[in-house]
């Protein structure tokens, strides 16, 4: 997985389903690994493979027409369990950006902590992306994190997205939260000393 993110032009894989929960992204029985690697193999496991481990033909990740580093999904993506394995699976599979009209909070944090960019767009713009890919599976999307813009290249339609400035800097420069928190050690210790009632 890349440790920075700045700019990307890529085709996208659309999954127009709402409320995709983290049990679909990576079922619990695949959470037994003790490293962060290899989860991509089981991304959307039960949607991708039948009980005999044969690929399900009608699932989009098994359709060679659709590929790319961008995943586009219906609203409330990543709801449910806090398992960071969901973000690891998405990253390990090769996605660098996930676009939806709404993300669950914990998933969004987990994605950002793994240098995967979750982009929240309006319902209308999400529809436009789905339509663009439906019209042409080779339709490209352009993501510019510095400008905070997302463009459907073929139509030129563009939308700006929100990201908090701290996380934006982390992604662009490859910083992580622990580096920052470790730098606050003095403040943390003086906070502890100042608490009359520190459980």
């Amino acid at each position, binding site marked *: 997985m890349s440790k920075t993110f700045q700019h990307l032009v890529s085709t996208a894989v659309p999954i127009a389903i709402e409320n995709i929960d983290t*049990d679909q992204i990576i079922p619990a*029985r695949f959470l037994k690994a003790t490293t*962060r690697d290899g989860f991509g193999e089981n991304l959307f496991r039960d949607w991708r493979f039948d009980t005999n481990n044969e690929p399900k033909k009608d699932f989009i990740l098994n359709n060679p027409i659709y590929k790319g580093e961008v995943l586009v999904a219906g609203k409330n993506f990543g709801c449910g*369990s806090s398992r*960071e394995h969901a973000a690891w699976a998405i990253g390990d599979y090769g996605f660098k950006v996930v676009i939806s009209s709404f993300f669950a909070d914990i998933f969004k944090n987990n994605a950002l902590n793994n240098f995967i960019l979750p982009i929240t767009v309006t319902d209308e713009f999400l529809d436009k992306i789905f339509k663009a890919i439906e019209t042409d599976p080779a339709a490209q999307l352009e993501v510019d994190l510095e400008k905070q813009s997302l463009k459907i290249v073929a139509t030129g339609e563009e939308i700006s997205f929100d990201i908090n400035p*701290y996380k934006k800097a982390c992604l662009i420069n490859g910083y*992580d939260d*622990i580096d920052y928190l470790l730098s606050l050690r003095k403040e*943390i210790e003086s906070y502890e000393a100042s608490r009359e009632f520190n459980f």
Partner: protein
Amino acid sequence: MGKTLFDKIWDSHVVVSKPGFPDAVYINTHFIHEVTSPQAFDGLRKRGIPVFRTAKTRATADHNVPTIDQHLPIKEALSRKQVEMLTANTKEFGVELYGLGHPYQGIVHVIGPELGITLPGMTIVCGDSHTSTHGAFGAIAFGIGTSEVEQVLATQCILQYRPKRMKIEVNGQLKKGVVSKDIILYIISKISASGATGYFVEYAGEAIRSLSMEARMTICNMSIEMGARGGLIAPDQTTFDYIKGREFAPKGADWDKALAYWETLYTDADAEFDVVLTFDAADIEPMITYGTNPGMGIGVTQHIPSLTEVDDKEKPSFKKSLEYMGLEPGSELLGKKVDYVFIGSCTNSRIEDLRMVADFVKGKKKAEDVVVWIVPGSKQVEAQAKEEGIDKIFEAAGFHLRQPGCSACLGMNEDKVPAGMYCISTSNRNFEGRQGPNARTFLASPLSAAAAAITGKVTDVRELV
């Protein structure tokens, strides 16, 4: 202007707040378990740093553990490895572990409260979304990912943006046969599985206030199922009575000091919320879910929405969901045959839940073709149930009390519901495959689950109590 309870606790835990940066928030208690911690310990090792405050971290093994023959080695190799790694990591880093065989072992969200570790005014995190359970004590408690577990192990702090505030008031009194699980399933069915995303919820109102601590935990537990960062309830005499005398609760002069602080933990009368929702407890009937997210719930006597009642945009997801469940739009669930009954999980596996089920099934017999799994939340719950003879009542009814763990809530151990089977479950998620590949879940209260165990089908428990 006054402050909300949430803001009072949050503000007193902010270590550093800089414009443009998330707040660095101090964490009083960090619970860890075997599934979401190995990569975090690995991260510490790579950085060459210790656990910053070992005494503020507690570990238990719950997600992967078998619920029978816990004295034997875990059969499944990967599960065994994860549990062994937790033992090795906690030993290496000096963290207290309540592992398999320990009298305090159990589901992380059951043991924290019952041991008096969870206290009002605390900040509590765990690499598990149902950490919101601890909010029942008037604590800020929420689930985190593994990178965040590593942050907390390394610094006892977490970087977070302050969520928005929502108040959910449930007024009036519950009707007979309706319990706290029905309240929360009802709320989620009204506001959807994403209705509280971005918010921290405070539950209030007469119906909430009159609940026991255990029932309050069930409500806060499922806050995440409507997307909320967490949910909390202001502490009161019920809270203080529950905590007093528990293993790690403050004692003597410390108790008096703590109590004086806890009594300041309420939302000021003039504090403002971003959103306030109000419900009437009398409108709530026993609830059951029919779909594949916890927002897809109905009163047990109601029918599943027909296609004309579903928004056009939501139709594809709705159809996919019902297809998975093998159910028809517009049909009723009442009388639907049930294959499995699971009573357990961090939502409903406490002693009060088991007592409720035991009271109901006493003198009754399980339906012949139903498999019933009753999984206590902890070793202490198991011991208490045995002391009260609850295990004997279960046996007489044809049930069996298993050993503690997360079990069929997420089927990481052997307790999986077979493909295509229907399970009425007291757990928190009805996602596709949650209880096993292609398993079908109906979420309901312990009382409704017990009723289904007796009749073998989805039942309106009010007719039996």
